[in-house]
């Protein structure tokens, strides 16, 4: 026992020395502490439960923070103050909203398809939760790391549309139905672009595994590595990701002036809360996948040869880097949302099928040529990147 403890402390100190604030210290300490007193089975069981609880808690907390941030930033774009009465600077506003939404009655709609009506929000929340698990939040904070991570994320996140379509179908309401159909058309179209944009980077990185993709970006993020092609893919991914989350200029599935609230018109209380939560989390997921794939994930900014600089950057913990980059992309999404008017359905489909998709297809070919002929930055300037 004493020997084990010494070993734990020693490993703790070695980790501690270079990166004192990483969560890896805590998780590896917990793992070895559990392993020293239990059999393999119980260790894994406890760790799985802990990871699940941590992810669920993070899911709820991130949604609350995002709702607050969105309301604040929206207000600033409109020269208002935003929530500023509940708590200091209105910090408790979204907590209060959450309590209110939990206390609300769940209204049962007459002549609706009861089973599908109740099942629909779960599809939504399960899809975004499953995608949420595959995000690398930081060094050692990566729950699911398949070797086909990109494919997994694209597949699972598109399950959410089933929830939307079911909601529209089962509500027995014209507005819900139209909203769901619009959402379906939009989602199917833009999923294509998002997938192709990610595919461009898969060509560049040569892997679909998120952890490997991140490791390869240590000195040169993918967005710089594939220069012109990467930047086009990045912009297309942001646009189509934004459209997939039904927000901003692409929010015609829930166009208030035409469809009251679109597919979630008939939902109340916690069920509406699920849709609300999933909407914000999808925004976060899109931003974090863009961070992982294009902006080097949780890695700090590092320059080859500048050891002192790299060391200082390394002291900032990886999750701070991850959330910082993600927050930047979320701000961009909000900025777009409050800049542009809502598209008509024909404009929406025009943008996808006439512009994004052809550009994307050409872009993949360009990227393949760049990679094959060695014109990526890491190939061109191996001394710097």
């Amino acid at each position, binding site marked *: 026992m004493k020997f084990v403890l010494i070993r734990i402390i020693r490993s703790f100190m070695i980790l501690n020395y270079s990166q004192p604030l990483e969560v890896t210290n805590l998780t590896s300490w917990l793992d070895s502490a559990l392993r020293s007193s239990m059999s393999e089975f119980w260790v894994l069981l406890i760790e799985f439960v802990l990871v699940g609880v941590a992810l669920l808690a993070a899911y709820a907390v991130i949604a609350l923070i995002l709702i607050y941030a969105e309301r604040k930033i929206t207000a600033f774009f409109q020269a208002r103050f935003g929530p500023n009465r509940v708590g200091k600077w209105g910090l408790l506003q979204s907590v209060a909203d959450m309590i209110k939404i939990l206390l609300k009655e769940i209204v049962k709609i007459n002549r609706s398809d009861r089973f599908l009506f109740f099942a629909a929000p779960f599809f939504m929340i399960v899809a975004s939760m499953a995608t949420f698990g595959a995000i690398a939040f930081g060094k050692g904070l990566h729950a699911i790391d398949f070797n086909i991570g990109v494919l997994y994320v694209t597949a699972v996140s598109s399950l959410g549309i089933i929830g939307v379509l079911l909601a529209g179908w089962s509500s027995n309401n014209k507005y819900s139905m139209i909203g769901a159909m619009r959402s379906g058309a939009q989602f199917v179209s833009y999923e294509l672009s998002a997938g192709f944009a990610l595919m461009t980077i898969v060509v560049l990185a040569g892997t679909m595994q998120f952890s490997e993709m991140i490791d390869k970006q240590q000195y040169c993020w993918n967005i710089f590595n594939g220069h012109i092609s990467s930047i086009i893919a990045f912009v297309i991914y942001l646009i189509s990701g934004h459209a997939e989350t039904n927000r901003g200029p692409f929010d015609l599935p829930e166009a208030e002036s035409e469809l009251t609230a679109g597919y979630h018109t008939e939902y109340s209380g916690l069920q509406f809360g699920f849709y609300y939560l999933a909407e914000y989390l999808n925004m976060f997921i899109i931003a974090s996948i863009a961070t992982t794939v294009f902006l080097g994930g949780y890695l700090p900014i590092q320059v080859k040869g500048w050891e002192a600089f790299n060391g200082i950057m390394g002291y900032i913990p990886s999750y701070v880097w991850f959330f910082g980059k993600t927050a930047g992309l979320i701000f961009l999404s909000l*900025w777009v949302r*409050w800049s542009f008017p809502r598209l008509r359905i024909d404009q929406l489909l025009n943008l996808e099928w006439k512009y994004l998709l052809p550009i994307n297809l050409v872009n993949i070919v360009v990227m393949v040529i760049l990679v094959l002929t060695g014109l990526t930055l890491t190939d061109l300037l191996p001394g710097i990147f």
Partner: protein
Amino acid sequence: MRSVAKYFSGLFTGIKSLLFGMSVTWKELWTKKVTQQYPENRDTLVISDRFRCELVMPHDENNEHACTACGICQMNCPNGTIVVTSQMIETEDGKKKKILDTHQWDLGMCTFCNLCVITCPSDAIKFDNTFENAVFTRSKLVHKLNHEGSKLREKKKEPLAPKGE
């Protein structure tokens, strides 16, 4: 060929105009907030002079007003908001004179049309800026405009203007 050129020019002008739009909102992000935080900013609150909140009858330092109790405001009021009661008194030199007893105005029925103020021949009433008029009972909405013990301001004798001007 023309359609290809149109496609690309449309694409790039579109991108340009989107970026311009984003630069506009970026500037808007840093502008001064226009929200009035009302109960806190009571001291610095600015209300336009022309805003009609409450009908008042200005009294000077001698507690004198300009209302001759002619009743024109009452006649012009479309809602019957104003009730002017007057009494006849006899002045020292034996002339009979009508003086104001009470000038009653009901805020609850007033539409703030300003007709009473426009038609008043002696400019005795006006709308002022005290806008916090909420009360708990309807009877408190009925205001008596002339102060207690006030009287008509005597006009100074001025030479009459020649006719025709």
